[in-house]
């Protein structure tokens, strides 16, 4: 049992436990914390896989921005722990475990297939990658801006859309907006009525 194995197993266990925490907690803040732990352990795993930049990105963007956003929203909406309300879909509780096992079994079967010819990952400074440049910033920049420029630009457009969309969606209803919408609705109804009268005549 090498150190890398132990490291992996530890991180993996942490991730899994935290993931269970995410899904089983009632209070969303606790779920958020669990998710942050998952993200951090995944970042560590990325490091073991020579994805330094991505690991940093994970912490900065995912755990640092997205999760913060989540926490902000939770606090904004003043969400408390779920009172014990009557669950309308009780059966899902019982269905969840079997489905979990089924899916797991299936995916494990695939993984086993992969394992038929066990592929150890190449070593960090091995023949394939002597300088260990796989996850470095330059390597990623090279790939991104030379080969995959278009996806990059498309992603930026996507982010722009997201910004605009989220601003619009989360806006409080202003009175003028409400009136404008209602007027538009009324006008549309009148048009429809007129059309129907025309058709009937």
């Amino acid at each position, binding site marked *: 049992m090498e150190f890398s194995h132990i490291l992996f197993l530890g991180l993996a266990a942490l991730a899994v436990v935290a993931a269970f925490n995410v899904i089983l907690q009632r209070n969303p803040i606790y779920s958020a914390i669990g998710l942050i732990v998952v993200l951090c352990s995944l970042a560590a795993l990325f490091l073991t896989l020579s994805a330094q930049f991505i690991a940093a990105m994970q912490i900065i963007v995912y755990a640092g921005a997205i999760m913060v956003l989540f926490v902000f929203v939770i606090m904004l909406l003043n969400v408390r722990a779920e009172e014990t309300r009557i669950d309308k*879909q009780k059966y*899902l509780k019982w269905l969840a475990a079997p*489905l979990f096992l089924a*899916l797991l*079994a*299936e995916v*494990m079967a*695939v993984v*086993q*297939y992969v394992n038929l010819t066990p592929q150890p990952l190449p070593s960090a400074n091995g023949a394939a990658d002597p300088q260990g440049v796989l996850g470095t910033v330059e390597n990623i920049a090279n790939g991104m801006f030379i080969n995959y420029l278009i996806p990059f630009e498309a992603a930026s457009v996507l982010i722009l859309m997201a910004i605009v969309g989220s601003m619009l969606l989360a806006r409080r209803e202003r009175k003028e907006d409400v009136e404008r919408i209602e007027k538009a609705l009324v006008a549309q109804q009148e048009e429809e009525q007129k059309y129907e009268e025309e058709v009937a005549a």
Partner: protein
Amino acid sequence: MLKWIVLAPLIGAIINGLFGRRFLAVFGQRATEKLVGFIACASVGVSTVLAFMVFFGQLWHKQPDADGVRRILDHLFTWLKVGSFQADFAYLLDPLSGVYILFITGVGLLIHIYATGYMHGDPGYYRFFCYLNLFMFMMLTLVLGDNLLLLFVGWEGVGLCSYLLIGYYIKWDVAGSAAKKAFVMNRIGDFGFMIATFLVFTNFHTISFVTKYINGVEVSSFLAQAAASPTVAVGTLTAIALLFFVGATGKSAQIPLFTWLPDAMAGPTPVSALIHAATMVTAGVYLVARCSPVFVKAPTAMAVVAVIGAATAIFAATIGIAQNDIKKVLAYSTVSQLGYMFLACGVGAFVAGIFHVMTHAFFKALLFLGSGSVIHGMSDEQDMRRMGGLRKYLPITYSTMFVGWLAISGFPLLSGFFSKDEILWRTWSTGSLPNNWGRALWVVAAITAVITAVYMTRLMVMTFWGGERFTGARNDHHAGAGHASSGHKDDHGHHGRPHESGWLMTMPLIILAMLSIAGGYVGVPAALGGSNQFEHFLEPAIAKVEPATATHTGAELAPVMAQAESHGAGDVAQASHEGGHDVQTERLFTGISSALALLGLAFGLVFFRRNPLWRAPKLLEDKYRVDEFYDATVVGPVENLSRDGLWKVVDVKIIDGFVNGVARLFAALAGALRYTQTGFARNYAAVILLGAIIVIGYFIVSFFGIRINI
């Protein structure tokens, strides 16, 4: 040229039918009556003139075809042509149809003129004449059609017009029911007709009465085929003949399909005269005569025709004695006389039957129109018990009906005498029925002749002679419901004495009376010194009877009385079983016929002068309860079957159940499927997950085999 004979009434019908209402709105009742009546009579008049022109101008002088028959063919267009089946729209004028169109158009014209006077004041005037013209069109199509299909078109058409005209008084329920009854009974006969047509086509491959060229092959008419050689089995021919006779039974009111004719008297009197005396009911006789080559090859069928004809004759005559409605007496008389005609056809004397058709058209139309005049003059009174002594009030009607009475009774030297005598003689001397059936049938026919004279005399006595019975009863009539005449005709305000009708109605009566007197002279048999032009003319078109015991030598003609006589020592094979023609016997029978007629007349006069209100036995008055019998055995069960079986079970439960069931099935399905749309996102996610598991599982199994090494 022929087509205009047929199409002229159609044009009249169309004009009156389409524009009659507008005339009424624009011109008012009186002017419309004149206009509509003129159009109707003119169109029939054109037909009449053309018919006489074609008959005497062309047919008379035409050279006979190869088989000895004079024919004129007017081909309009090929109507149906499917494979080897061809039906043309073509008109055929040969001696048989020629005789028919003469009296159809002639008598029809007289009745049209009569009707213009009779229907005066009726608001549906234009409708009446439209239907009447339509009827003429259909009847002429029937008679002039050159194949069975076109004949059937006319056949159905006259049935339709009969329905329309019987039910002319649309607000009177009885008329509507009578019209339906007539139509349905006709229909039953039509079924037999149709099956016979199918059989004809199957066996002879043609339904035409003339030779045709079908697909380049010459196909002779089925009549010629039947006459020529027995390629078709006798059984089949018998079946065809009997089925045609079933059709004729429906149309010409023989046993068992005769009950519609008395009920058809609910229609206006001109209708009764035209349709149910002179023309439509003779269509059956026309059919039998036209298909005579088939009939003569099927002796069994001939026997059936003769027996039923005779039976109907005596049956109806006995009922006629007991009726009190003047029109019903005449109706049963028509049924009885039609029985005579079929009797004639059944014993092989087709020509005699046609002769009787013609003379019967004259005197029966005369009698019906006369009775209409009586009814009109009596302000719609039809019950003879309330008449009497009308001789002085209706002189012209009386004298014309006097002639008709004598004619139908067979008074010597009038038209009816010659035709009836001919039939009686032929019945006695027939060679086509088994031994002595001819004589038995003669006895039946003779008794019927006596009864005919008796009931006609009763009619005359009760109506025209004796004391006047109508004064007291008239008030009851007007107060009571009567026979619903208040709805359909206006009283002319003549609540007082009976009055003679106008000249529009009496003129046709006079003409018909003259025809009744003189019409018989074209058919005087040679035995009595005449030349029997009628028979000569018609003969070639109609088959001859083969004698029952003939040896089928070359000339297999049963002795034709007049021909043998006029040709002197003819070369006709003397193969009939009675050993040759016997002039003496014929003259003897003529005397017997005269004696029978006079006997009946005398008895009637004496008996009914004494007690005009004699009541007949209840059975006769109830018409032997045939209608009730039919109701119980046929109509009742059919109604029950329809209502309880077909309607309640088949229609409501099965058909509606099926259709509604389909709808309910879909509604149920939708109701079940509704539960998948719950609106809860978690459900949807669960289903998606489940689906994904299944799909992945499938791929795992198919790609990797079922191996799970853990």
